[in-house]
């Protein structure tokens, strides 16, 4: 994939985050007293719709953040030879973070 494709995915992720995280923030506000209660957390954990919602937020959010951080690191005059190392590091970090973060709602859904 070329740089232009990564940037397009960044735009798509940004739009996804705008709607999903926007809904997440509004939902959190209107349920502010109950949302952090263990019963409410357990109810959402057992819901397939919420699981899908969280997985999508994680995919869009982790991609958008890591692509943004990659751009900032590149701006420190990273030599062209180090760009591949940076790219693979970002991919590995992204996979690791996604793996850890998605395990939590999946564990709640299964458990």
């Amino acid at each position, binding site marked *: 994939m070329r740089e232009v494709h990564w940037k397009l995915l960044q*735009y798509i992720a*940004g*739009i996804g*985050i*705008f709607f999903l*995280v*926007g809904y997440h*923030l509004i939902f959190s*506000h209107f349920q*502010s007293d109950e949302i*952090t209660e*263990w019963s409410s*957390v357990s109810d959402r*954990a057992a819901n397939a719709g919420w699981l899908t919602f969280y997985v999508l937020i994680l995919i869009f*959010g982790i991609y958008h*953040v890591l692509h*943004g*951080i990659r751009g*900032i690191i590149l701006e420190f005059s990273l030599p062209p030879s180090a760009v591949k190392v940076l790219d693979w590091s970002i991919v590995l970090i992204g996979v690791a*973070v996604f793996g*850890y*973060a998605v*395990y*939590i709602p999946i*564990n*709640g859904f299964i458990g």
Partner: protein
Amino acid sequence: MEAANKGKAPLQNRLGIKGWAWAGRYKIERYLYTLHRLTGLGLAAYITIHMIANGFRLGGQGSWEDIMSIFGTSGFKVGEYLVMAAFIIHALNGGRLMLQHLGITLGKPKPPVYPYVDSLRRKRSLIWVMLALMAALAIYTLVAFVIGE
């Protein structure tokens, strides 16, 4: 006289990171770039903490309630509001940037006639609308999320 810099590389004159923050007498769009970067990094830091906090769910009800009792303090409430504000700024500015990166809302090129007004300044109204929306949402969330609690 001994040459102080003889044989050395020419003196670099890059502004460096301070060139992101403040570089001269530029207009607001230049500093919206800095704000977008700061809010992005702030949100990235928050998301990391948020994911770690959510991980306490794996330890069961006791561990979850312990971490929630820490986050319920007033200091964290202010932090939560700042995260909301950062999201509002980053999201609205990001939407504007996405439209302008695709050349939408910038107008067409036209032969320059003095005094020159560039496309960003010609379409200034979009920036003012965006800033007004940011301010309105920031005030609303301050009242609804923090003062109203």
